[in-house]
């Protein structure tokens, strides 16, 4: 199951695990990434807490934990090669995996259709 946030992050929900990254729209807005910082596995975060940082030539942007839970795994290959987030944001460019603490937070996120409506609105603004 795929879920999305207003902050242009995606979550792939598999059992009690969520894989998290930024969307195609987000990577286009940021431009070429040159640095990615990921959280330490084992850290527990609240929903909305700054969990990762992605940086382009010009700017640094926070990536927030979209739900509460424990960071269980990070994608070391995007740290070594930040451009993976640009070339494959919803595949090889995933950022980190979380163990879902509260299922209801997942249910409250947008589905793909709702997210696309958000993008269309942003593009026409």
């Amino acid at each position, binding site marked *: 199951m795929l879920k999305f946030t207003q*902050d*242009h*992050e995606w979550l792939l929900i598999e059992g009690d695990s969520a894989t998290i990254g*930024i969307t195609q729209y*987000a990577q286009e*807005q*940021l*431009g*070429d990434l*040159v*640095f990615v*910082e990921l959280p330490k596995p084992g850290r527990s975060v609240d929903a909305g807490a700054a969990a990762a*940082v*992605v*940086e*382009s*030539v*010009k*700017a*640094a*942007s*926070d*990536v*927030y934990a979209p739900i509460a839970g424990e960071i269980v795994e990070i994608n070391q290959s995007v740290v070594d090669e930040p451009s993976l987030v640009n070339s494959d944001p919803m595949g090889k460019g995933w950022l980190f995996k979380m163990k879902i603490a509260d299922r209801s937070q997942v249910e409250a996120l947008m589905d793909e259709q709702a997210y696309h409506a958000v993008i269309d609105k942003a593009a026409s*603004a």
Partner: protein
Amino acid sequence: MRHGTRSCCVGADMSEVVAGERLKRTPLHQLHLDLGARMVPFAGYEMPVQYPNGILKEHLHVRAAAGLFDVSHMGQFEIRSRNGDSEDAARALESIVPMDILGLASGRQRYALLTNEDGGVRDDLMIARLGERFLIVANAACKDADEAYLRQTMSRACTIERLEDRALLALQGPRAEAALARLAPEVRSMRFMDLRAVEVMNAACTVSRSGYTGEDGFEISLPASHAEAVAQALLENSDVAMIGLGARDSLRLEAGLCLYGSELDVTTTPVEAALEWSIQKVRRAGGSREGNFPGAPKILHQLANGAPRRRVGLRPEGRAPIRRGAELFSDQDTADAIGVITSGGYGPSVNAPVAMGYVARAGELTGGRVYADLRGTRVPLRLSGLPFIPTTYKR
């Protein structure tokens, strides 16, 4: 993801412009839109921050081939002596900049600083002499204040004309000479900081061999009415790509060049900014036209005795860029800052983060190292010479 939460300077989106604030447009506005530029407000203008290729590729393209920049937002002034004797205009200019202007030959350009009574910098400029005229290029954000100041200080001896109907293009990179020479072969014989009246596609241009990237290249002042045609003709060459303000900033940072408002402002002196090379001997203590510019006592004193802080290059030892505003410390633990980052980001040609900043007593630092707070961790940066990349000016 929240976009640009720690972004600096050129980051705002057009939609964030306050209602009622009318932004000006350059003569190349339509061309920028046609090329798919992302436009941002900058110094009162709608300017292209990047094109679809993005900042990283644009930056590398300039270093590998040639980039064309629209810098028509910058101020252009023409100064003439009222009595026809250009030496009078040179003397008037020397009363407001600590540079040798009387000794500036026709056809030559020089970097200059408008200083204030405290020894600070009102603006940094290019001043060129062409026959009886002096031509000035000033920063967009400063040009209105500069005009008022020039009128206030020089009007008795000189006429000051703001060249509103002229565009300014910069063509930079190793293929710049070949690209411009197709339209105007005579530019091949120009050297770094030469300036000439050149006809380009029937437009009366003033071309200088200079720029803001560390690369060889040219800056072309031309009638606004001809700007798009000349830009289009240059872009027909596959070596030439349009480059936005984003890459302009990363290129100048790698080249160790100051940005007014970041490295320079009314509180930074030329010596603090490590720009003493721009003050010629003749204006220094013991020179035949020593002093007699705003802030001379302080600036001459600092030239002799050093400044309490200096602009330095910095290389973060990790991969994380350290950005503008980050405070600097002498070790891992002290609470008292000894300096601050003024520009910082990723250097695409260096392939590592680079920064400039001000540091007090840089010579006393152990191991030539300072520290900055980055998201709760104190990370090391090494003092570095400037520029970060070898420059390729045609001297």
